[in-house]
């Protein structure tokens, strides 16, 4: 009973995961444009499937956004202009690399703050340990004296 069901499920899942990759990324007229295109579509979020880039997603919206990027590159827009046009329509959330602003500062600074805290804690522990070792030695000495 379970076997056939699992087999069918497995086949379905395989179909789904394969179909997720069954799309072609459109190509650009020149290698330089192709390079910019590949870069841009990997740093723009697919808003429908939010943890994928528009390069990774087969959904219609990602396809439309790739077309938008392609057309803007061909129209002579710079990468910064293309990113800006995306942010104007979808907000900063469409960029996988958020810009450094007041509202995003903590995202960028938190790792360094945590590193400082971690370093501080580590130094404290090491200091405490070394004072422990010193007192251990004195105990050993007294033991030797006692024996």
């Amino acid at each position, binding site marked *: 009973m379970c076997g056939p069901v699992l087999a069918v499920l497995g086949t379905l899942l395989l179909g789904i995961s394969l179909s997720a990759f069954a799309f072609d990324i459109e190509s650009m007229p020149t290698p330089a444009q192709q390079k910019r295109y590949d870069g841009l579509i990997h740093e723009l979020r697919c808003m*429908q499937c*939010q943890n994928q880039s528009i390069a990774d997603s087969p959904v219609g*919206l990602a396809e*439309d*956004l790739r077309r938008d990027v392609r057309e803007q590159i061909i129209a002579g827009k710079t990468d910064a202009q293309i990113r800006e046009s995306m*942010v104007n*329509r979808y*907000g900063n*959330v469409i960029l996988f690399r958020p810009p450094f602003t007041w509202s995003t500062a903590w995202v960028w600074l938190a790792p360094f703050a945590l590193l400082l*805290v971690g370093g501080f804690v580590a130094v404290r522990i090491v200091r405490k340990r070394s004072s422990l070792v010193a007192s251990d030695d004195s105990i050993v000495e007294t033991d030797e004296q006692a024996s």
Partner: protein
Amino acid sequence: MSRFLIPAAVFLALAGVLYVGVVHSPNKSTMQSALLGKTVPAFSLPVLGNPGMSLTNTQLAGRPWVLNVWGTWCVACRDEHAALLDIARQNVLPLVGLNWKDEDDAALDWLQQLGNPYSVVVADRDGRTAIDFGVYGAPETFFIDDAGRVQYRHVGPMTAEIWQREFLSRLPRAGLP
């Protein structure tokens, strides 16, 4: 005492950050439109079921209106359809339909079968206007004020409650009939 004070402070700080993160996580229904307060993107689209006719954003200027993004392929659009019909019966704000990446025939069939709540429906067959509006999932409904600025965007099925709370409340008092 300070043995516990520092870990407790760290815990509280972390809990605070995570709480804010969870509360403000990009929930599909709460993601704010990047267009809020900005002028509607320019568009000129063919009117559904009216070959040769088109509608532009400038034709809608001067009074508040509502843009509803839908498609016959969109299940949640079927869910909100009854609410849209009720809203249309109130006759307070013109409902403009944006038929997103759809077949004209399927869209016309849908309106004939379920009823047509829209003052006018435009066909965005290749989805360019939807992108300009920052649409990421149908249904989405925008409130545009008389100055042509986007004042609110609702993602997900429209309900009588949301209509009352987020759309009617944004109408200027003077504009009420």
